[in-house]
C-alpha cells in the first residue's frame, strides 16, 4: 500500500472516528440534558419541601392556647385542670405558669420599659396564672376549645382563652400552599423522569440501530444477549451518573449565588439560609441519592430499550 493511500486510509479512519464520536456525543448530550433537568428538579423539590416543612414547623411551634385562671383557683385545682388537659387526645404539651412566673416572664419581656415595670411593681401582681396548651394538630384545635368551653372550666377562667386565631388562618394558608407546591413538585418530577427515560430509551435505540451490524456479528458468534446488552446499559448508567453529579453542582451553585446576593435570607416562603444548611449538611447523602436516581432511570430505560430491540428472533 502506497504512503498516499495509507495516509488516506488513516485520515478516513480518523474522520469516521470523529464523526461517530460527534454523533454519539450529541445523542448523549440530549439524553443527559434532560436527565440533568430531571435530577435538578428532584433535588430542588426535596430541599424546598424540607424548607417549607421547616418554616411551617417553626410557625406552628409558636402557636398555643393560653388559659388564664382566676386568682381564686387553688394550686390543686390548677394541677387537676392541667392533668385533664394532658389527657385530651390532641394536646402535645401543657405547661402551668404561676402568677409569679408570669410576672417574671412579663418583666423579662419588657425589660426596656422602665415606666411599665415600675407601674407593675407598685401594684399587686395583676397578671393571671396561665396554662399554655400546645396542640398536636392545629386543625383539631376544636377538641381543646370544646373542653375549655365547659361551664365548670369557664368558671375558673379570668378571661376567655386566647387561640392565636389570626395566626392559625395564616398557617392554614401556608400549609395549603405548601401542599399544592408539593403536589406540583411530585407531578413535575414524574413528568420529567418519564421524559428523560423516554429520551434515553430513544438514544439507546439509535445507538442499537447504528451498531446493528456489529450486534448481528456478535450474535452470530454466540454472544449472549446480556453480553450485547451490557455496554448499552453501562452507557446509560454513565449518563445517569454524570447527570447526577452535574445536577448536584447546579443546585450547589444556585445556593452559593443565592445566599451571597440575597442578604435577606428569606425569599418569600423559601428560607434560603435554612435550605443552604439543609443541603450542605446532607451533601453526600444527596449526591448518593441523585446517583441512585440517575442510575435507576438510565438502567431501566436502557434495559427496556435493549429488551425490545435485541430480542432473539427465530422464525
Amino acid at each position, binding site marked *: *500500500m502506497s504512503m498516499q493511500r495509507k495516509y488516506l*486510509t488513516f485520515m478516513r479512519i480518523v474522520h469516521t472516528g470523529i464523526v461517530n464520536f460527534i454523533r454519539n456525543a450529541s445523542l448523549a448530550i440530549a439524553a443527559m440534558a434532560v436527565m440533568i433537568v430531571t435530577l435538578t428538579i428532584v433535588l430542588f423539590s426535596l430541599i424546598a419541601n424540607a424548607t417549607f416543612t421547616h418554616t411551617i414547623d417553626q410557625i406552628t411551634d409558636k402557636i398555643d392556647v393560653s388559659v388564664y385562671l382566676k386568682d381564686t383557683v387553688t394550686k390543686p385545682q390548677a394541677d387537676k385542670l392541667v392533668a385533664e388537659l394532658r389527657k385530651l387526645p390532641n394536646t402535645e404539651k401543657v405547661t402551668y405558669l404561676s402568677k409569679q412566673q408570669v410576672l417574671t416572664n412579663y418583666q423579662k419581656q419588657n425589660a426596656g420599659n422602665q415606666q411599665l415595670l415600675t407601674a407593675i411593681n407598685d401594684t399587686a401582681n395583676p397578671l393571671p396564672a396561665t396554662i399554655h396548651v400546645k396542640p398536636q394538630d392545629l386543625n383539631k384545635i376544636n377538641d381543646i376549645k370544646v373542653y375549655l368551653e365547659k361551664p365548670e372550666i369557664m368558671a375558673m377562667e379570668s378571661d376567655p382563652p386566647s387561640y392565636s386565631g389570626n395566626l392559625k388562618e395564616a398557617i392554614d394558608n401556608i400549609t395549603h400552599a405548601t401542599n399544592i407546591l408539593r403536589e406540583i413538585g411530585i407531578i413535575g418530577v414524574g413528568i420529567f423522569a418519564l421524559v428523560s427515560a423516554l429520551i434515553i430509551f430513544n438514544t439507546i435505540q439509535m445507538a442499537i440501530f447504528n451498531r446493528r451490524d456489529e450486534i*448481528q*456479528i*456478535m*450474535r452470530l*458468534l*454466540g454472544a449472549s444477549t446480556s453480553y450485547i446488552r451490557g455496554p448499552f446499559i453501562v452507557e446509560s448508567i454513565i449518563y445517569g451518573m454524570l447527570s447526577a453529579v452535574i445536577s448536584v453542582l447546579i443546585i450547589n451553585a444556585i445556593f452559593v449565588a443565592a445566599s451571597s446576593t440575597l442578604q435577606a435570607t428569606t425569599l418569600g416562603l423559601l428560607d434560603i439560609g435554612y435550605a443552604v444548611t439543609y443541603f450542605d449538611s446532607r451533601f453526600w447523602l444527596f449526591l448518593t441519592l441523585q446517583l441512585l436516581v440517575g442510575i435507576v432511570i438510565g438502567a431501566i430505560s436502557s434495559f427496556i430499550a435493549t429488551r425490545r430491540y435485541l430480542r432473539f428472533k*427465530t*422464525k
Partner: protein
Amino acid sequence: MILLDRVTKTYNKNMGPALDRISLHVEPKEFVIVVGQSGAGKSTLLKLLTREERPSGGKIIIGGIDYDKLHDRDIPLLRRKIGVVFQDFKLLPNKTVFENVAFALEIVGISHKEILHTVPKVLDIVNLTGKEKRMPQELSGGERQRVAIARAIVRQPKILIADEPTGNLDPKHAWDVIKVLEKINRYGTTVLLTTHNVEIVNKLKRRVVTIQNGRIVGDRANASYKI
C-alpha cells in the same frame, strides 16, 4: 455429527418451499461441499444449521443437540459450538485482527492470559502471524477471510460452516482460504463448505452434495462439480 431428516423450510406460503424434505447425514471429521445455483437453498440450509431460521418441518440434530428441544436462550451456547465463516467476512471494523479473533473468546469468558496464549497459535494456522495489529480495512479480502476463519476456529468447534467463503476473492486468495479449511479439517473438525467455484470443487475431490430447487439432487464422494 450433522443429521437432517426430511427438513422443509417455507418462507412464504404462496411460493414453493426454499427447502423441500432435505435429508443429509454428515460424519464427524468429514469435509462436505454443498453446491447449487443461487436461490437453490444453500443459504437457507446453513441458516437452519446456525438456527438463524427455524425449519417448517423435519428434524435437525447437530453434535447431539436436537433443535426441537433447543430453547431460544440456549442459541448462544449452540453457536459457540459451531464455527461459521461468511462470504462477507463479518469482521468488526473497529477492532484489530487480534481483537477480532480474541473477541470470540472474550464473549465466552476466556481469561486474558489464555487469549494471549491461544490467539497467536490460531493466527499461525491461518498464516496471519505478524498482522495482529492490522485493522480489517488494511487487509486483502483473502486475509480478511482468514481472520474470519481464525475467529471461527479459535474456540475449537466440532463443526465449521463456511458459507461461500471464497465468493468475494480472486482465485489465488480463494485457494489460500481453501487450504486453511483443509488444514482445519485434518486437525479433526467437520467442515461444511458451500461454493460456486467449479475449480475448487474439482480440485478438492471431496463429498459433494448438490442442491437444486430446494432438493438434494446429488450426493457423491470424491466428486466433481456438476449441476
